[in-house]
C-alpha cells in the first residue's frame, strides 16, 4: 500500500467492546492535514478510546484504522512505533514519567523513537543554517514554546497541574508531529490556566498547520479552537476574521454518545442542533 498523506487519519466502521460495554460503535471518520476536530461527549462515551485506537494503543474489534495512508489495524507493536513518531499525544493524566526530569521527559520522543533519533542529526533536525540542532536545543525550544524553560531540571511531581499539562504539550510537539491528539487538556484546571492551555494548542496548530483532534467537555475550548487563531506577529491569540482565515471551516465538531457519533459538523451547525444530548454540551460552556 502506498502511504497517502492527504488523509492524516481514517476510521472505517470501527467498533470496540469491553465485555458488555460498547466503547466505539461503527465509527467512521476522516481527518485531513491542517484540520481540527473537537470531540465532545459524556464520561464513558468513548472519547479517550477514539484517541487510543487512532494510534494503535488499543486494537479495535472490527473495522480499519489508517494513519497517514497506512493501515495500522493489523500491524505489530514494533512496526507501529515508526508511524506513532509522527503523532503527538497529550494524555489526560499528562502521562509524564515520574522518574525522569522535565528535560528528560521532553527529550524522550527524540531519544527513544527510531525515526526521530535519525532525524536529530539530519536536515530535519538542523536549524537551516547548516548548524545541527542537538536534542538539548530542541528540548529547550519546546519548553520555551510552553513558557516553561526554567523547569528543565525539575521533576513532574514538583510542578502544578497546569504546568504538568504544559510540559505534556512540550513533549507532544517536540518532534513536530503531523497529527496532535489532546485528551481533555483542560480537565480539572481553573479557567485561566485552561485558556492558557488552549492558547498553546492554537499556537501549535497555527504555526505548524498541524492536524488536531481535541477531546474535551468544555464547549468554550471548542469555541476558541474554531474562532481564534495565533498571530505570530503579535504573539497573541486573536479572533479570526471571516473570509481570510480558514480555521472556522477547518474546525469540525463531533459529539459522541455510547461509542457512536451522534453529531458531526461546524460550530453554527452544532449551535443549530435540536438534539437534547448535543445541546447539553452547548449549555455547559455557555461561551
Amino acid at each position: 500500500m502506498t502511504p497517502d498523506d492527504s488523509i492524516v487519519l481514517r476510521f472505517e466502521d470501527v467498533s470496540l467492546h469491553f465485555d458488555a460495554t460498547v466503547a466505539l460503535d461503527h465509527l467512521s471518520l476522516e481527518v485531513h492535514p491542517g484540520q481540527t476536530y473537537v470531540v465532545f461527549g459524556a464520561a464513558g462515551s468513548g472519547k479517550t478510546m477514539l484517541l487510543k485506537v487512532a494510534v494503535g494503543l488499543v486494537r479495535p474489534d472490527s473495522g480499519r484504522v489508517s494513519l497517514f495512508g497506512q493501515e495500522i489495524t493489523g500491524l505489530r507493536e514494533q512496526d507501529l512505533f515508526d508511524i506513532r513518531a509522527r503523532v503527538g499525544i497529550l494524555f489526560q493524566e499528562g502521562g509524564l514519567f515520574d522518574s525522569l526530569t522535565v528535560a528528560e521527559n521532553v527529550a524522550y520522543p527524540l531519544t527513544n523513537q527510531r525515526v526521530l533519533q535519525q532525524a536529530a542529526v539530519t536536515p530535519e533536525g538542523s536549524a537551516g543554517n547548516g548548524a545541527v540542532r542537538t536534542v538539548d536545543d530542541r528540548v529547550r525550544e519546546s519548553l520555551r514554546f510552553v513558557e516553561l524553560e526554567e523547569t528543565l531540571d525539575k521533576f513532574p511531581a514538583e510542578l502544578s497541574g497546569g504546568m504538568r499539562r504544559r510540559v505534556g504539550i512540550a513533549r507532544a510537539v517536540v518532534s513536530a508531529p503531523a497529527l496532535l491528539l489532546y485528551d481533555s487538556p483542560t480537565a480539572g484546571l481553573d479557567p485561566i490556566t485552561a485558556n492558557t492551555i488552549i492558547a498553546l494548542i492554537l499556537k501549535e496548530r497555527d504555526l505548524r498547520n498541524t492536524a488536531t483532534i481535541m477531546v474535551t467537555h468544555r464547549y468554550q475550548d471548542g469555541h476558541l479552537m474554531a474562532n481564534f487563531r495565533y498571530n505570530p506577529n503579535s504573539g497573541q491569540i486573536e479572533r479570526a476574521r471571516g473570509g481570510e482565515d480558514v480555521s472556522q471551516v477547518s474546525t469540525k465538531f463531533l459529539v459522541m454518545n455510547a461509542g457512536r457519533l451522534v453529531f458531526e459538523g461546524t460550530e453554527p451547525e452544532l449551535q443549530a442542533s435540536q438534539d437534547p444530548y448535543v445541546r447539553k454540551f452547548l449549555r455547559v460552556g455557555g461561551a
Partner: protein
Amino acid sequence: MLDILKPPIEAFQEFVLLSIRAVRNIFRSPHYADDIFVQMDVIGVGSLFIVSLIGLFSGIVMALQMARALTQYGAQGQVGSIVAITLVRELGPVLTAVLVAGRNASGIASELGSMKVTEQIDAMRALGTDPIQKLVTPRLIATAVVLPLLTIISDFIGLIGGYFIASGMLGLTFSEYWTTAWQALEYNDLFQGLLKPFVFAVIIALVGCFYGMRTTGGTQGVGRSTTSAVVSSSVWIFVLTAFITYVWNRAFVKQ
C-alpha cells in the same frame, strides 16, 4: 460454570504471554542496561540487610531447635550438618524469596500499577518504547541474578548464626561445627539450593510485573494489584518449592 472459569484462564493466558515476551526480549535490542543495574540495586542491595537478618535468625532458631532434639540422642555434634542441610536446601531459598516477594513483588506491582493508571505505560508505547522491554525484562533479569546471590549470603549468615548457638550452648569448637556443616552438603544440595531461588526470582518478577501492568481503577486498583502480587508470588513460592523438591528427589536422589 464456564463463565466462572473464563477470567482466571484469561489471566493465566495473559501471564504466559507476558512471560514469553519478557523472556524473548532478553535476546532482542534495545537493551536497557541502566535499568537492569538500577533494579539490581533496588532489589539486591536494598534487600541485603533484611535478608541477612532473617538468615541469621533462621540459623539461630534451627540450631536451637535441633540442639534440644539432638542432645537427647547424644548427637549434638551433628547440629552443623542439620543446620547446613535445612538452610541450603529449603529454608534459605524459601525465606529469602518470601521476603523479597513481600518487598519487591509489591514494589514492582505498585510502581508499574501507578504508571499504568497515570497513563505512563500508554505514553511509553506512544513514544516508541515497548514497556515490556523497558520495564519487565530489566526487572526479570535483575531479580534472577540477585535472588540466588542473596540466598547464598542468607545461607552463609544462617550458618554463622547456627555456629553461635553450637559454640555458645553446646560447646562445639569452630572446626567441629564447620566440618560437619561442610561435609553434610553435597553438590546436589547446592544445585537445588541455587535452582530454587532462580525459579522463585522469575516468579516474583513476572507476577509483580503482571499485576502491575493489568492495574485498573486508580489508586485503589494499585493497592489491589500490590496485595495480589504479594499473595500470588508467596503462594507460588511454596507450591514450587514442594514441586521442585519432589521432582529433584525422584530424579537425582538414590532411594
